[in-house]
């Protein structure tokens, strides 16, 4: 909160950037609405609601930007002060890697390493516990889904699972 006492313009003001992203999104929604055709007030077209929602988005985003410029706001860094910011980052990296691996490798070959990574990277679970959990939980879920509920999870190019 100490950042907020200093009202001078700062480029790393997170409120400002949040507002700018909102403004850009609003602009895109307006453009999409126009492209889809607005229709008339008697017979609104497919883009009618999008267009006016986009205008509202721009107005709200503009008010966020104005507040950020006049009142200041916390910096990006201050949002992550006293937190273990690398931990969520690691989880995000694991999830993105998993999403790339899911289709080609299939559920089992991607879920087991994902579980192992998640169990070991954030607050490391002991190997003798982490390995069985990482192996048995995805295998158990796969078995229940495939055998009991007859749901086929992705099997990937190796057709495992």
């Amino acid at each position, binding site marked *: 909160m100490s950042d907020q006492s200093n009202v001078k313009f700062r480029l790393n003001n*997170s*409120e400002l950037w*949040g507002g700018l992203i*909102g403004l850009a*999104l*609003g602009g895109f*929604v307006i453009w*999409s609405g126009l492209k*889809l055709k607005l229709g*008339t*007030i*008697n*017979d*609104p*077209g*497919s*883009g*009618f*609601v*999008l267009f006016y*929602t*986009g205008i*509202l*988005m721009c107005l*709200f985003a503009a008010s*966020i930007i104005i*507040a950020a410029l006049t009142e200041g706001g916390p910096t990006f860094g201050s949002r*992550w002060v006293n*937190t*273990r910011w690398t*931990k*969520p980052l690691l*989880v*995000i990296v694991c*999830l*993105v890697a*998993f*999403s790339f691996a*899911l289709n080609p490798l299939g*559920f089992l070959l991607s*879920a087991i390493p*994902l*579980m192992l990574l*998640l*169990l070991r990277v*954030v*607050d*490391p*679970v002991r190997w003798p*516990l982490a390995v069985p*959990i*990482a192996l048995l*939980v*995805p295998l158990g*879920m796969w078995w229940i*889904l495939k055998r009991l509920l007859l*749901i*086929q*999870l*992705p099997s990937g190019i190796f057709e495992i699972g």
Partner: protein
Amino acid sequence: MDTLVNVAHGLGVALQPVNLIYCFVGVFIGTLVGVLPGIGPISAMSLLLPITLSGTPESGIIMMAGIYYGSMYGGSTTSILVNIPGEAASVVTCIDGHQMAKQGRAGPALGISAFGSFFAGTFALIALMLVAPKLASVAIAFGPAEYFSLMVLGLVVLTFLTQGSMAKALLMACIGVVLGVVGLDSITAQPRLTFGRIELIDGIGLVPVVMGLFGVAEVLLNTEQVIKRDIINTRITHLLPSREDWKASAGPMSRGTVLGFFLGTLPGGGAVISSFASYALEKRLSKTPERFGNGAIEGVAGPEAANNAAAGGAFIPLMTLGIPPNVVMALLLGAFVIHGLQPGPLMITQNPGLFWGIVASMYIGNLMLLVLNLPMIGMWVQLLKLPYNILFPLIILFTIIGVYCSSNNVFDVYVMIAFGVIGYFMRKLGYEPAPLVLAFVLGPMLENNLRKSLILSQGDLMTFVQRPISAVCLAFALMLLVAPLLPALRKKRELVALDEEV
């Protein structure tokens, strides 16, 4: 007389063995997620939404409803024993509940919370049975203009009550509307914002969006912190409160029940606000307010009754108008829609078995919670010892499987991960996901009703102010939008928002 016949009909549906099992599973899972910090009813309901597809609509909805009120119940256990709210509505229970536990009175705190929840749940159900059919008969006369205005009011109330900047909450609501209308236009069949992806023709799925924004994002936020648990290790005795405890709690419980039920029925209202409102009311009415915060049983009884009554009250706008007043009800609406049902005024007359079955099952569920959970406190305490570093990978795996099973489509897993990451950054930057999700669910209905009313009135915007119900809703919405500009009201809003944040 009609009500009794309907209740008997509902009991017939709810007492079918399969529905009893679904009800039990629902309240059990609800209590479980209520007990476990880091996973709330929204995540659990979105996680289990695909499972409801396998049974009848009654069974699915009964289970989902069970998760909701079960979590209200379970949340108090964690608040009292660990001083960590299992879910948002139990935040206020931590204040006096944990103090009571520290003074060796965990048993009475847990007991009064269970009995208060049961009492409030029962009251809410009776009120639901009496009010819903009457309101539904009025709601039949609602046209698209009324529906549009009611939805606008619901969204504005929610954004008003969301913590932090109202402009941010309104921006989130707008983004929710935009995401909700992705896919084929229901009137012109023109694809909108699909970017040529065939997976988006039917729109973005509710399950991946909610699981991402609430499930994955919540996990990411929790991994940032070291979750410390100060579990009360003493043996829990005297679960049945003493006569003095009952005497002190009767008033707060009754007031909390009425207040919670009323707040629960309002659009945008819900269990969280009700529990805080009840706590504030009891503190104000108390002759010894200094006891609050130091283990006053009134500070547990009132809010616990209020959050359960609110959970029951929230079913009224959903069942009678088809409008979800909060995110949990929006998810329940999603479950109805998945089964091809549209809750609203016609559902009670056209599908009485479903409506009365759900109502009756809620009463049975409340009984199950009381009978099963008090003796099972020991088990829940053991469960609280499950370390979060083992729990969160499991939550992630279950969300992935849940999302995949809801559509058999890997694309939805990508959508969930994307919304999880977006949700994390949103929360870090102070953008709440609740208005986005409610607007996402209401978006298509909002658009349809707006366009229909404009077509019917031949483009006359006065239709929204000439119809009394619509005019009142819009006037209320406008008032709330203007309120933050007035310094006195702005302060009041910030107070409520801060309270929710605690």
